[in-house]
């Protein structure tokens, strides 16, 4: 008897994913009804590409959340990477008088490598404090958020670096496949596919869930929790770094104040998609669904011509309602 119920019922995780997919489709139908322009090819492609950066950063965060850890430093790291890549590749003697006009004049490829190494360093600091010094992940990543954003602020004097950049600098952000389907979208698709394989098919993925579900048990069963978390924090900083470089290329500038609040936006979309903030439960699929539910909502509100203030209020309400519904659905299933 028991066996039959187990077979006919999908797992809680799949159940949440299917329900959230339903919500996404519902939102799209509503969007099409109130704002007929929603399914215009350019608008639709815009919705897809607008969330690409958020999803790329979100992969690292989702993996960490599954293990029960946070990374609040990603927004800072995006700005840090953007300002660094600009500083590294600005010509050393651009002949301009302003201080921010001169950089190090490096080859762009070398600049990318060095920027990513610097981002990995931030990830290493996070991992060191969490693994070796047993500091709560929220606190230390709050610290590295301030440090990485702070370095970006100092290196750009609170503003931006956009003088004397080589022509190649703006290429990454302009690569386009079809219309607005651009490099970030390609990177997103590749990384999401990779992440799904890691999550579902590899030992590395299974360990993440085990650590999140019960850290003590994971330790006792011989899992090197420290190494696993270190790899995940490095990945998270690396993804944020890649995003920072692409965003800098798109703006053709390294901007110190960019990506403010990204860490919270990512948290919201992962939880909206059904990943548990207390660990052991979640998926990259949830991340993608959550990101697009919010993306479709924003786009619809925009098409309806609502001012951004009302949008903030509506988003707050939708998030609360979504989380409450998930909880209700799960508890009804269990009864």
């Amino acid at each position: 008897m028991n066996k039959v119920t187990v077979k006919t019922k999908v797992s809680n995780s799949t159940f949440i994913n299917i329900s959230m997919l339903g919500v996404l489709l519902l939102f799209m139908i509503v969007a099409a009804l109130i704002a007929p322009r929603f399914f215009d090819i350019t608008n639709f492609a815009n919705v897809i590409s607008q969330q690409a950066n958020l999803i790329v950063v979100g992969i690292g965060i989702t993996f960490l959340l599954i293990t029960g850890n946070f990374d609040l430093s990603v927004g800072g790291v995006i700005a840090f990477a953007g300002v660094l890549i600009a500083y590294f590749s600005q010509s050393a003697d651009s002949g301009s008088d302003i201080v921010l006009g001169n950089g190090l004049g490096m080859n762009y490829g070398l600049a990318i490598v060095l920027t990513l190494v610097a981002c990995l360093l931030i990830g290493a600091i996070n991992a060191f404090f969490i693994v070796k010094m047993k500091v709560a992940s929220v606190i230390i990543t709050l610290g590295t958020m301030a440090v990485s954003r702070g370095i970006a602020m100092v290196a750009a004097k609170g503003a931006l670096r956009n003088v004397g950049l080589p022509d190649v600098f703006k290429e990454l952000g302009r690569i386009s496949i079809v219309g607005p389907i651009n490099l970030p979208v390609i990177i997103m698709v590749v990384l999401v596919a990779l992440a799904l394989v890691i999550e579902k098919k590899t030992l590395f993925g299974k360990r993440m869930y085990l650590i999140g579900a019960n850290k003590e048990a994971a330790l006792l069963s011989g899992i090197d929790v420290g190494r696993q978390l270190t790899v995940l924090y490095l990945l998270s900083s690396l993804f944020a770094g890649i995003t920072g470089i692409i965003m800098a290329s798109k703006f053709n500038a390294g901007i110190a104040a960019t990506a403010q609040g990204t860490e919270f936006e990512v948290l919201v979309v992962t939880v909206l998609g059904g990943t548990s903030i207390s660990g052991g439960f979640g998926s990259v699929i949830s991340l993608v669904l959550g990101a697009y539910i919010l993306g479709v909502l924003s786009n619809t509100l925009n098409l309806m011509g609502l001012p951004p203030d009302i949008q903030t209020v509506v988003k707050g309400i939708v998030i609360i309602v979504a989380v409450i519904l998930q909880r209700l659905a799960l508890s009804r299933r269990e009864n």
Partner: protein
Amino acid sequence: MKLKSLSWNKIIKDLFIFAVLILIILIFTLLSAKFLRVQNITNLLRNSAPIIFVSSSLTLLMISGHVDLSVGGILSLSACTYAVLLQRGVPYLWAILAVLAMGCLMGLINGFLVVKLKIVPVISTLATMNFFWGLARLMVPAKKDLIKEGLPKDIDNFARQDFLFGIPLSFYVAIIGVIILVILQRKTILGKYAAAIGGNSTSASLSGINVALTVQSLYVIVAFFSAVAGLTRASYMKAGDPKAGIGMELDAIVAVLLGGTSFFGGSGSVLKTVVAAFVLICLTVGMSVIGTEPYWQTLIKGIVLIVALIINHQLTEKVKD
């Protein structure tokens, strides 16, 4: 012998944040003679009230293992509501009472989401932060940044004008608030329950503590104090500014953690949070006094937080040994 050294380390840990404050004051005094001038100290105390209100009340909540990210949103919405009410000619007393009542209501909403609907505090208060902040923005007339026109001229009496020794009333109210919170934490059942819930929520519940009621009350207390901070900001700026509370949640949490309260709850001290808040204020004011460009502030604050974590860790390890 062992016992003795153990208590020594505990004393060092207890005095750590006080030492940091004195050290920072010393450094800035050495760097600039202006730092200890009366005018600068008055300015420093005048600016300190909002963060004291928010961080000291947040300490109680965080001792219970919960967090409130919506404090900045509550602050902004309270400041804007206050300004709108005064603009419409509502007398001070009623405007203040209305804002405080609304603050309590916002705390009830947060508590309801966390306690009754069991949504993780980080998410529920993140959502209400957006919600409150958006409402505050909606109060501002179109194409304006502030609610400024038609406010009574004496609105700044509370947070800007001299009340006693050149310092405005808001600072003294903040001190009274801190005293009340210290008593709440140390002498009342609410403080003991908060620590018990933060230590282990399940065993607290099993030993007969009404966890739901306690946590709900703590959220209302935090929201009430954040609303007072909102009144203070509105009075200081002579305007209702929806951006008044931006970043407050971060500053307040940093102050609470710097003061040694554990992020997972169970232990902490309101008094040490206030000292830590002064560390942050002295850093901000001190850096502007010695002429550091404002863009250095984020980096310096981050470094201070990380260094404090390292030292705190070393001290804790020693206490454990």
